[in-house]
Every structure is written in structure tokens, then in C-alpha cells.
């Protein structure tokens, strides 16, 4: 072998930095392009993420878990009755197909929506609700049944909150699958949500809850801060800032 020829792949000497981030760094290069291994890694991850969009949600495990923990729940569906319609008709994903039974008035509506990643809900919803629901009760909030909504977008929470006349609306939703995190969950909080009226400017978002992302504890801390501030200010949304301390917060699950 002629050892004078340069190798066709130039590695990067900073691969050590990969310990700090799930990002695809120090991939090396073949000429100016991705080496074959990095290219095929990407193709594999894209295939997994694309397929995960189409895995249907199975709420039965979560439903049983909530029952065991003593929390009533309710299964609902949006007006988008299949995944293809869900992807192309965001308007239908924001509306309930059926109205939940009437109930006494409550303070907080907690909604679980499959969104774009049923895996996010399967992996993270139960563990997060185990922290969230008792925390809300400790603060004296009366809860609506936890609504598990299939083919649902974030704004479905407005419809649920309006139905229960709940001033707090918390939606857990499967985020669009990323290559490195096909199961990322987001939380959207809206104060005094109004169906068909509240907009994204009225919500606060806590995103990237997954094993390489935000921990359940820190997500809860942020959410409780936002709830407390919204109660003080009388509104949520982009004028309500997450001012929790981040110093000790950058942790991994």
C-alpha cells in the first residue's frame, strides 16, 4: 500500500467534543462531503423518524396507569379521523369530534395529545403526569379528567379547557420527530384559554422533553413557575417570561 497517498476520508481531531452534544459534529469529510458512514447514519435516522410519524398512538397503557394512580381520564378524538387528514388539515386537529360529558367546574385541564410523535407520549407522558398531577392538586387546583386526544394539535387544549371552564390549560404533545430524538415531548401552557380565540402568542412552550433533552423535574419546575406567574399577571404567552434559574438546570435525565 502506498502510504504517501492522502486518505480519502479526513477525520476531525475534535471528536472528544461529541460527549457534550447529541449534534452530529466531527463527522470528518470525504473531499468537502460527508463520508459514507456519516451519510448512511443520517439516512438510517431519517428512515426511523419518517416511520415514527406514522406509528399510531396507543392510549390504553397510559389510561390504565392513570386509573391505578387514582386519576380519572377520558379518551377523545379530534375531527381529523386519520393520520393523513391529521397531517394535511391542522384546522381539524384543533377541534374535538365529540364533546366530553358535562362536569362540575374545575381549575385545570390537562390534555395529552399524540401530535406528531406517539412515541413521545408512550415514553414520557406517564412519568411526567406522575409529577404534574399531584403538584397541581397540592396547590389546590381541582382537575378535570385527564383528556387523551388522538390526532390532536396543541390548540385542542383550548376546546377542552373551554368545555371544563378551566383557567389552566396544560397540553402534553408529541413534537415533530427529529433525527436524533424521534420521541420528544412538548408542553404548552395557556391561561384562560378560549377555543378558537387563543393563539400561539397566548401560550408558553416548554419543549424537548426526552432522554437527551430537558428532564421531567426541570420541565415541571418551569411549568409551575409559569402557572404561578400567570396567576399573578392574569395572562400567559409571550409577555410572560420563563425566568427560572437555569444555573443548575442543565442536566440530563
Amino acid at each position, binding site marked *: 500500500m502506498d502510504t504517501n497517498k*492522502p486518505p480519502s476520508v*479526513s477525520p*476531525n*481531531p*475534535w471528536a*472528544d*467534543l461529541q460527549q*457534550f*452534544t*447529541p*449534534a*452530529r*459534529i466531527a*463527522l470528518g469529510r470525504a473531499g*468537502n*462531503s*460527508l463520508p459514507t458512514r*456519516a451519510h448512511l447514519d*443520517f439516512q438510517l*435516522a*431519517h428512515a426511523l*423518524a*419518517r416511520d415514527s*410519524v406514522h406509528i399510531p398512538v396507543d392510549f390504553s397503557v397510559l389510561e390504565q396507569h392513570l386509573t391505578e394512580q387514582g386519576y380519572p381520564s377520558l379518551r377523545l378524538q379530534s375531527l381529523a379521523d386519520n393520520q393523513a387528514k391529521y*397531517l*394535511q*388539515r*391542522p*384546522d381539524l386537529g384543533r377541534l374535538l369530534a365529540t364533546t366530553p360529558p358535562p362536569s362540575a367546574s374545575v381549575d385545570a385541564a390537562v390534555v395529552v395529545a399524540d401530535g*406528531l410523535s406517539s412515541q413521545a407520549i408512550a415514553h414520557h407522558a406517564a412519568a411526567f403526569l406522575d409529577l404534574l398531577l399531584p403538584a397541581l392538586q397540592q396547590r389546590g387546583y381541582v382537575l378535570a379528567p385527564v383528556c387523551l386526544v388522538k390526532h390532536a394539535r396543541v390548540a385542542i387544549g383550548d376546546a377542552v379547557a373551554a368545555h371544563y371552564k378551566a383557567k389552566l390549560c396544560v397540553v402534553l404533545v408529541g413534537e*415533530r*420527530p*427529529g*433525527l*436524533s*430524538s424521534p420521541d420528544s415531548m412538548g408542553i404548552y401552557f395557556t391561561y384562560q384559554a378560549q377555543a378558537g380565540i387563543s*393563539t*400561539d*402568542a397566548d401560550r*408558553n*412552550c*416548554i*419543549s*424537548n422533553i*426526552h432522554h437527551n*433533552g*430537558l428532564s421531567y423535574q426541570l420541565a415541571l419546575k*418551569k411549568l409551575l413557575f409559569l402557572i404561578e406567574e400567570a396567576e399573578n399577571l392574569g395572562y400567559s404567552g*409571550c*409577555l410572560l*417570561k*420563563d*425566568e*427560572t*434559574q*437555569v444555573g443548575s*438546570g*442543565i*442536566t*440530563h435525565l
Partner: protein
Amino acid sequence: MYQRQIHNRHYHFKDLRTLMAKATPLRSGDVLAGVAAENHLERVAAQWLLADVPLKQFLNEALVPYELDEVTRLIIDSHDAAAFAPISHLTVGDFRDWLLSELATTEALSALAPGLTPEMAAAVSKIMRLQDLIAVAKKCRVITRFRNTIGLEKRLSTRLQPNHPTDSLPGVAASLVDGLLYGCGDAVIGINPATDNLEATHRLLQMLDEVIQRFQIPTQACVLAHVTTTLKAINQGAPVDLVFQSIAGTEKANTSFGVNLGLLAEAQQAALALKRGTVGDNCMYFETGQGSALSANAHAGLDQQTCEARAYAVARAFKPLLVNTVVGFIGPEYLYDGKQIIRAGLEDHFCGKLLGLPMGCDVCYTNHAEADPDDMDLLLTTFAAAGGTFIMGVPGADDVMLNYQSTSFHDALYVRQLLRLKPAPEFETWLHQHGIVDADNPWQLANTLPAAFKASLQNLSGLNYGHE
């Protein structure tokens, strides 16, 4: 009323807004909004009619009422009649011919920009093919400055986007170093924060400022928080180079983003007062994207491409350093597949450039869209051929925080080498000084680790940034 007989069928469109929507090449967002043409023939009938509309009609028939929308008021009130004069006698169809002709030189196009409304630009784009959009945009030249000079001929800049799912400083730093060593980051080093948290924003701004100062990088930093968060950070004394905000083309859509023209002006003034630019004072960074107004149910019956062009009127009021159409981010309900994303990216670039904006493009897609890296290669290559101002640089094209795929550092190297494009001149000099690019071939990276970065890499590995 706009009407025409075509192939024994009578078509009539009740107003200019309807005509514009019906003439728009097919995209899912217009179908979702219920404004798209019902079939190919109706679309072409609308295109024939649109071609006959005098450009002056756009000054007489506001597509969103003047009284109801501050973006319309901005467009009408800031229209420069003198700049418009050379083409004021043309129809939309004549305007297309004029743009493609030798009359439309770089100088003529620059002089015309303040005389054009977004609706005129959108209208003509609807009767242009991709090669028309590319050929005309390529003739436009928009140059902006903060710590370097962006938009010169034969240049393509890159935004280094070192996002991290929890805004971990070592995590951001790792991607930042990777990007710099791949020659990326002359448009801006811009981080999307994972949450709109003031303290995290402040910390990220401080870190970027430290890196830029330590390595004396001729570039600018930005944390893409909401404008109100950035204003708070400025008030706390944070080192803010560029103010970021997402904007849209109607007042109602901007309201759903929590912004208005007054707030943007306040933020611009606050950033200008910091006087952090060294070669210029373009201190705003805007992002846009077709479909965002409809997503907020604020499209006012307009098609999404016309809405998008109207967002450029908002942008140009604030003399931005950078405007970025995040074309494939919004998802398949607005741009269904690679074909729709590619056309939208080139339309946005064309309209933005015609209106005098430094247009970049986030060549991107989500995992629920019918698109893949092959589609992105086509948009990347055609966008750069059209003279696009800047693209994104994301490690391995995979944004691990925003969960979508953009262009990678490798992609930027590929297209620069292919089309012989260089970064901003100040940044090019810096890459040479540090031995990041090959001394003899500016389109090739050097194979050795630059001396200045050796110590930093050791520090970073030694948890210099306070890894928790």
C-alpha cells in the same frame, strides 16, 4: 371583477386578491385555506388575467384593507413613486419581460426596489418559472454590514446554528467550534434557545460574545429569542449584536407572534444604541416563511406566497442585516413536498431580493413532509446559483433542538466549491489567518488543527464552560 374566456369556458374572479390566489402555482397551504385554483385550467386562466393587470392597480386596490392592517398602511405610505416611475406604465406580464430583459440591470433593479410593493413582486413571480426566478434574482445585489460585508458578488454566507436541546453551554460550544473549523458562521452565529428564558438567553449571548472576542471573529452573534426577551436582555446589559424576530405579512399574524411595527422599531433603536457594529449598523435579523399567517388564521383570504411577500415590507422598514425564509420548516400542510418547498424557496428569494432585502434561505424539511436530502440538494444548488445571500450551517444537517433538517457545514463547502463562492471578505481573511482553509485553495479545508483552537479544544474538553 377580472374575467376571461378561455377554451370555451368563462372565468371570472371577483377581486385582485382572489385572482392572485388562483394564479399561484399549487401548494397545500392554499388548498387548506380554500383559496387555490380548482384545476389547472382555472390557474392558467388566472395567470393570463394577472399578466394583463397594470402594476398601478396594486396601488389602488389594497389586498388587505388599509384601515384594518398596519402592514398595508406601511406598504402604501412608504411607496416611492419616483422609484416606481420607470415601470409605472407596465402590466404584470410586461414587468416580467422587463425584468428578464437587458434593461433590468443590477443598478436599475436597485433603484427600483423602493418603488415596488410586495404584491407587485408576488404577482410577477406567479407567472415566472424557476429559471426566471433564478435569472432575475441573480441580477439583484443587496449589501448589508455589521461586523462584515454580506451580499457581495460571488459570495455566499452561512449562519452557524449550534443549537442544543437544553441550551447547555458546552453543548453549544462543541457545535460552534465544529462549525467554525468547517469555515461556517460569517452571516451570524445564531442560536435558537430551547425555551424563551431570559437568563438562558443572557448567558448564551455572553458566551457568544466571549468567543467572538477571544478569536477576533469578524462576525455577529444572535440568540433567536422573542424580541421582548431580547429587549429585556439589552436592559440587563447583555451584549446584543442582532435583534431577532419572526415576522409575517398581516397585522393579525404579527399580533399572534406578539409583535407590531412599534415594538420592532423600539427594539431596533435599543440595539442601535449599543453601537456594536464595526463596519455598519444593520442590526436586525428576521425570519419568515410561507404559511405562517394561515397557521395563525390571519391570512385575510390571501394566498400564502403573497402574505409572505408582504412580510418583506415589514422587514425592509428596519434595514435588516439578514432575512431568512425558513421555507420547509412549517410542514406539509403548507408546503407538501420537495417540489413545493423548492419553488417556494426560490420565489421567496426572488421577491425578497427584488424588494431590496438580504435574503437567505433555510433550505430545510421536516420528517412529516414528503421531502428528503435529494430535494434539499436541488434547492441548495439552485438557491446558490440564484445568488442567495446566506444559508444555514447545522452540524450534519440535523438540528437536535428544533427537530428538523437543514443544510450542513459540508453542504456549504460543497456549494461554495461548486459555484466558486466565498464567504464575506472579512471572514475569508480570518479563515486564512487561522489556517482553517487551505492556503492555496480557498474552497478546501486545511487538514491541520489551527493553533489558536488547540488550547480551546483542550479547555472545552476540560470543562472550561462549567459543565454541570
